[in-house]
């Protein structure tokens, strides 16, 4: 295996008596989609928060592109190339679709300290934003207010904002959440192509999507990794069946 793009080493996080993350070590290889699954309360969101910088682990470390980023905040990790999407869309609802994408472009350029020139007349920022919107098929909605988008379109915009950053790694928190069957299918084929640009750490509940996309799957239960392996390994693992997929699977 080559050098991982993203890795955690022995991450631990406790909330009182609850061990939300218990000695979790996972890694993400170039070009792969690594899915993290687990029942509700398994600690997936807590894990993501520690990877992205919103939460400090009690122990262990996070490495991004071979560098220890455990002490960096969310902003600095984003600057290092970590592109994140949220489970519940975190978008500026009052702003237009284009403006949300431009926010990403401003972040990518790292220059928000310009007070005079209208941002919409800045062709560099605009082109970067429009390119990202085009990739998720939102070009024709660029002028719409984000609050007026459908749920599925907001999920697409969520991905587009991450795309404007040209990240080295994607961390996606349930990109399929709330999408219909058709939307899920589209998003699945989109993410399938995206892995060539940057590997994806995918937290997802939609098992069809996970089985279709993942190169590897890690199963988290009560904050602990109970299995890691290929789709086939996980489907066949007795421990996983018992703990998570239930009798029917």
């Amino acid at each position: 295996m080559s050098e991982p793009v993203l890795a955690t080493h022995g991450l631990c996080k406790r909330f009182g008596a609850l061990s939300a993350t218990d000695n979790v070590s996972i890694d993400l290889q170039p070009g792969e989609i690594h899915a993290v699954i687990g029942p509700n309360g398994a600690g997936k969101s807590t894990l993501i928060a520690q990877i992205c910088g919103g939460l400090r682990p009690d122990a262990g470390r996070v490495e991004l592109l071979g560098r220890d980023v455990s002490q960096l905040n969310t902003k600095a990790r984003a600057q290092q190339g970590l592109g994140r999407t949220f489970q519940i869309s975190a978008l500026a609802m009052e702003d237009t679709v284009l403006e949300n994408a431009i926010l990403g472009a401003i972040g990518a350029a790292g220059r928000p300290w310009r007070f005079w020139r209208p941002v919409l007349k800045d062709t560099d920022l605009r082109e970067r934003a429009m390119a990202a919107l085009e990739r998720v098929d939102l070009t024709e909605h660029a002028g719409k207010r984000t609050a007026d988008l459908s749920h599925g379109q907001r999920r697409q915009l969520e991905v587009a904002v991450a795309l404007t950053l040209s990240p080295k790694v994607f961390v996606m928190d349930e990109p399929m959440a709330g999408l219909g069957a058709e939307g899920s299918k589209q998003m699945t084929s989109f993410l399938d192509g995206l892995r060539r640009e940057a590997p994806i750490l995918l937290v997802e509940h939609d098992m069809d999507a996970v089985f279709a996309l993942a190169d590897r799957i890690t199963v988290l239960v009560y904050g602990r990794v109970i299995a890691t392996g290929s789709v086939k390994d996980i489907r066949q693992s007795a421990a996983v069946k018992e703990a998570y997929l239930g009798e029917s699977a």
Partner: protein
Amino acid sequence: MIAERWINGTVIAGILAVLAYAILADEPFTITLLTRVTILALAAVGLNIALGIGGLVSLGHAAFFGLGGYAMGILASHAQTFTPLDLGLFTLPGTKSMPVIWLVAVIISALAAWIIGLLSLRTTGVYFIMITLAFGQMFFYFSISWSAYGGEDGLSIYVRNGFPGVNTLVPAQFFAVCFVALCLALVLFHRLQASPFGLALNAARQVPERVETVGLNPMRLKLVAFIISGAITGLAGALFADLNRFVSPTMFSWQLSGELIVLIIIGGVGRLMGPVIGACLFVALEHWLGGLTDFWHIWLGVILLVIVLFARGGLIGLLTGKEGAHV
């Protein structure tokens, strides 16, 4: 519905029409009222950057207004008594020059906003409101006890300060100075709102976690907005002191901070001309209703209540049919 730019044009034209009438009818008091509108609007335009774009409900903006006022009062009082201002390490002469006073007012308020912002922006919501209020009150009580500069009684400046090429003793000319300052602040607000900084700040108000994940620091964006905001309100304070030729602790009072917020809410939060419309209405009510009853604030309260309940976008929102400042 009416386009916002028509409303904006009408307001400016209206102010100038009243000015023309006041000059022709020789009513200097009306010009003074207009100047009061202009200066309050300027202070509120400053607050609108923090409150309207950045979502920072500061109940302490009187601190900057008062600092601007005292910058004028202290410099001018030293000039009128011909005593230098002793700063310990060195002394400075007082001055009666508006540009110099403004510069000092802007720098001092910006510095204060930097420090206050640095400490207050760690909190959000009600706590932010309370901590900014506390800072405002600190300045208020300090000014009351600062007997060297009049304490509770305030400071009188006998002759209005000068501006090169303008006879500031003529009400219309002093109004013109204030009006130009307001227009410049409005242009700044307009450019700022549409700039990359404005977009990022606006997003930091709505979804700070998103702003962080694109690699920007929402707190720093808000801090810079707070500093610019405080500096403009400080400039308004210096002009206000010059209008009255008097400075007192009431410029630091929390009621003033509240009034600035009320002006913005009445006109429209985050709207370019929101503070100007709010200031027009406020001064008109203060003048006419204030002449009829001492309790005119009740009617201001009723108007505010109606607007908050039925017209969340303020008067501009009501007229344009668009509740938000955006899109």
